[in-house]
């Protein structure tokens, strides 16, 4: 029913990100005849619910110093509860109140997000490298876009989050930024907006005014010298979207009023990829359709 450009918006689990403002912007885009797909995380809600349920939260730190949530089976249950039962119905209800027909989905629905579970991961604990085998997280290796396409064509706004399904059909946690990038690529989206708790890519993480207008990620390997902490993940997600054919990828502030419209108007950091003639590994790992 809609024929305008498709924008994929990822809003974080950062509690400071303004979900009401995001929903209002989505409503504006939809009213203007555009298509939108929303991807969300929910780290704040996961932590809150895990605390209430008395499930200890641990962090895995890889030997190259990337921190991720240790998703043991009890934590995966909390992740799904918090995302599918907490964050998502609130976003859907808010969009609905704004007159936007939206549909909450996880990667399990319609077999949309498929991941390969990492059966063994390394984590650094007290300076020692330990192998962890019960971590239920994975790397996205396939997007089946038919469900999202069907809904977008009928004028619905899909609201998507982890988990994905592993090779045996069991839920696994995946990175929501990279899920947004993979969906944007698979759906042939025109734009990907990754909202975060910072004004964009900063040269000095302590100085919000050090935001870069543009940032060029290398086609392979580490995403570069201003990629610290969670920003490294976002830049890898951005690269995957660019490699998958998404023309415009921006990392922008989710804490301001009208965060999506501001980002689309040019605030935040536009991510580009240094050109390379050969196809990258990332491109082949996320099929376009």
């Amino acid at each position: 029913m809609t024929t305008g450009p498709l924008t994929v918006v990822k809003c974080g689990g950062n509690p400071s990100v303004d979900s009401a403002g995001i929903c209002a912007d989505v409503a504006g885009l939809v009213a203007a005849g555009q298509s939108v797909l929303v991807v969300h995380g929910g780290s704040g809600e996961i932590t809150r619910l895990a605390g209430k349920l008395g499930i200890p939260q641990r962090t895995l730190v890889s030997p190259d110093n990337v921190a991720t949530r240790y998703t043991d089976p009890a934590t995966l249950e909390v992740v799904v509860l918090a995302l599918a039962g907490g964050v998502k119905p609130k976003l859907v209800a808010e969009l609905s109140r704004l007159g936007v027909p939206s549909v909450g989905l996880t990667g399990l629905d319609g077999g949309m997000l498929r991941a390969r579970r990492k059966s063994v991961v390394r984590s650094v604990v007290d300076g020692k490298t330990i192998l962890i085998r019960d971590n239920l997280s994975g790397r996205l290796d396939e997007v089946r876009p038919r469900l999202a396409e069907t809904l977008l064509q009928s004028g619905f706004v899909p609201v998507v989050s982890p988990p994905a399904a592993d090779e045996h059909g069991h839920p696994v946690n995946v990175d929501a930024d990279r899920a947004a990038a993979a969906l944007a690529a698979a759906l042939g989206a025109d734009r990907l907006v990754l909202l975060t708790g910072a004004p964009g890519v900063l040269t000095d993480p302590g100085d919000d005014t050090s935001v870069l207008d543009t940032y060029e990620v290398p086609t392979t390997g580490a995403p570069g010298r201003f990629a610290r902490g969670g920003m490294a993940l976002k830049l890898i997600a951005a690269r995957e979207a660019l490699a998958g054919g998404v023309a415009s990828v921006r990392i922008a502030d989710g804490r301001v009023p009208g965060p999506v419209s501001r980002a689309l108007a040019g605030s935040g950091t536009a991510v580009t990829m240094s050109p390379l003639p050969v196809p990258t590994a990332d491109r082949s790992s996320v099929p376009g359709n």
Partner: protein
Amino acid sequence: MSTILACPECEDDVEISPSARLNEIIDCAGCSTELEILSLCPAVLACAPEVEEDWGE
């Protein structure tokens, strides 16, 4: 007291310190193979499984 085991790859001595942890990775000084401590008491070593390197996960 440390335990000494033979590297399953090159049979060199590998020292397991008293502070070692289950599933810890240690490198064999003789052949540089990564070994995993599969059990502490008794100490059991095996070649560590390959772990996919994946930026950003």
